[in-house]
């Protein structure tokens, strides 16, 4: 049976790679993204790659008051959501946000509040369905605050903590909640950073995401070695950690 898949932040490089794999399986896709040109191009692409149907909705998720209407429309169009993937995000410039409260809060709004708002609304639908998977892209950066990007990290860890509770709650409704924690992925968000051997391609990360959704995992580190890197980083005593230049 063909699946119904919702993707928020669909034009993200990682989400696009995920959408293409589901399209090749003949899924129906509901895409939410803010850039009309990009989402049109992507919708066409997904149809040609085999999607049964593609519905798209233009929305800037920063406008929280529009979320209710968006989710309502999703539920009308899809009836049942088999998989919901939330992928949008921004990587603020740490130096800038240190000196700009407005920019700090704005990045929290995009990365954390909007996601939590959408999850809260979507959860009703999943409880009604008594099945499905909710998958959210957070980040390894949320595992520990570091001076070089703790504003981003904190917004991601807020979502991760929220997901833990949601997972626990929805367990009793047969709904799975997956927290996706990518390491370094070669995407436009980080186009300005120097690349090393640790960097993964979005297609590879997408493959891991599909596998984790399929296997009903709770937490995914992708590529896998980030689980071990973060295990070490998480276990450094704070009195030492605070002295590091990470």
């Amino acid at each position, binding site marked *: 049976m063909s699946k119904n898949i919702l993707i928020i932040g669909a034009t993200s*490089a990682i989400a696009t790679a995920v959408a293409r794999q589901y399209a*090749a399986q003949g899924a129906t896709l509901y895409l939410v993204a803010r*850039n009309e*040109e*990009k989402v049109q*191009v*992507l919708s*066409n*692409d997904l149809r*040609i*790659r*085999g999607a049964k149907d593609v519905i798209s909705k233009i929305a800037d998720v920063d406008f929280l008051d529009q979320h209710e209407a968006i989710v309502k429309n999703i539920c009308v169009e899809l009836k049942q959501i088999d998989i919901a993937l939330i992928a949008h995000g921004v990587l603020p410039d740490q130096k800038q946000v240190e000196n700009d409260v407005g920019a700090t809060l704005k990045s929290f709004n995009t990365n954390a509040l909007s996601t939590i708002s959408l999850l809260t609304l979507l959860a009703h639908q999943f409880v009604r369905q008594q099945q499905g998977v909710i998958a959210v892209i957070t980040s390894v950066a949320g595992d520990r605050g570091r001076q070089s990007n703790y504003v981003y990290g904190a917004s991601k860890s807020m979502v991760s903590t929220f997901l833990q509770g949601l997972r626990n709650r929805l367990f009793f409704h047969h709904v799975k909640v997956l927290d996706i924690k990518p390491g370094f992925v*070669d995407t*436009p968000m980080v*186009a300005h950073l120097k690349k090393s051997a640790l960097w993964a391609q979005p297609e590879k990360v997408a493959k891991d995401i599909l596998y984790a959704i399929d296997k009903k995992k709770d937490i995914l580190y992708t590529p896998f070695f980030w689980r071990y890197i973060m295990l070490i980083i998480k276990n450094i005593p704070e009195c030492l950690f605070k002295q590091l230049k990470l």
Partner: protein
Amino acid sequence: MVSGWGRYPFIEATMLNPASLDEFRQALSRQKHCIARGLGRSYGDSALANEMISLRRMDHFIAFDAKNGILSCEAGVSLSDILKVIVPQGWFLPVTPGTKYVTFGGAVASDVHGKNHHIEGCFSEFVQSLTLMLSDGSLCECSRDNNPALFHATCGGMGLTGLILRGTLVLKKMSSAYIHQVMIKADNLDAVFSLFEQNAASTYSVAWIDCLAKGKTLGRSLFMLGEHSQEGGYLLPPEKHLTVPLVMPATLLNSYSIAAFNALYFHRQRQKEQHRFVHYHPFFYPLDSLLHWNRLYGKKGFTQYQCVLPKAAGLLGMKEILKKITLSRRGSFLSVLKSCGPHNQNHLSFPIEGYSLALDFKIEPELFDLLNELDSIVAEYQGRVYLTKDVRLSEAMFKRMYPRWEEFLAIRIRYGADQKFHSYQSDRLGL
């Protein structure tokens, strides 16, 4: 650090990955000189510059008319992705290189050819139209009727006219995803040449030459023919790969191991002629199931020398070249002989009617003299070397081999491309 497929040379470079037209414009205006980059499967320095613009994120399908076999896509779409979409619907690439990991844009820019060049020509023969971003950020459509000079300069133009953003390709109807393959042993170069002549009507043909065979066996080869089969359906190949994990020590590829490899390859087939029913994947892309096989050549990297000699030079010229390579004992892992049909109208497309030979060489200091000597022979016979494989051809040789270079340069200037698009190769060749 980036390089071409040959892993030589490696250079420091910045690579931008624009995803929308605006981002492409910004990328162009930010850089003085730059070059387009697809999947980096060109061997040498044609897709190398200190500033590069990757087409990786320009990788969407635009339209597919499955009834008439017409596909429009962005230039960063790979042939591998195209196959996934078209094969299940009964279509195939009209021309394909020996790897499916190249982009549409790269296939156009090198005007690639396949095992069917003698009958069906280059990739560009099937390109209906292209959309380019010129050096000033404006978009320009071109085809055989619309801005024809730009079209013919772009096909085979090694990225030197502008950024190819999208294009439309006419596909080939196929009767199944399987190939009826015939392999014939040829004891020497004379034998393989006559096999090419006798089988000029076959759709696909190619020969693997054992470059270390000498004397009477000079040019002994496995000659391979293929036709699309009528049976078997339209199944895609399974996605299974092996990866060469690390850069291997180059000594693995000394002349003994190559001799062993070639002998093995040659003797694997006992009978003189063998017929098989094979999937298109192993037939067209034998190396694609070994990812990163370019690491096999060790730290210093390698290059491929591909030349084509006109029919008139045929056997004689090829013998001279093969002898030289055999004597040097720098012989290659893979050496491929193909027959080419007539040249098309593009200024820098490689194939001319005759025979093309391609060999890999590990990079070592003495190699360059050998290749220069080969250039002289090739030029003497009015042949040429393939730019998409090249990393060392001299400006003078290039201009001798590609007499239309001046016309090409004029078009480059007319469209302002000379102010913006430069690769290591174009600077070396004086373009």
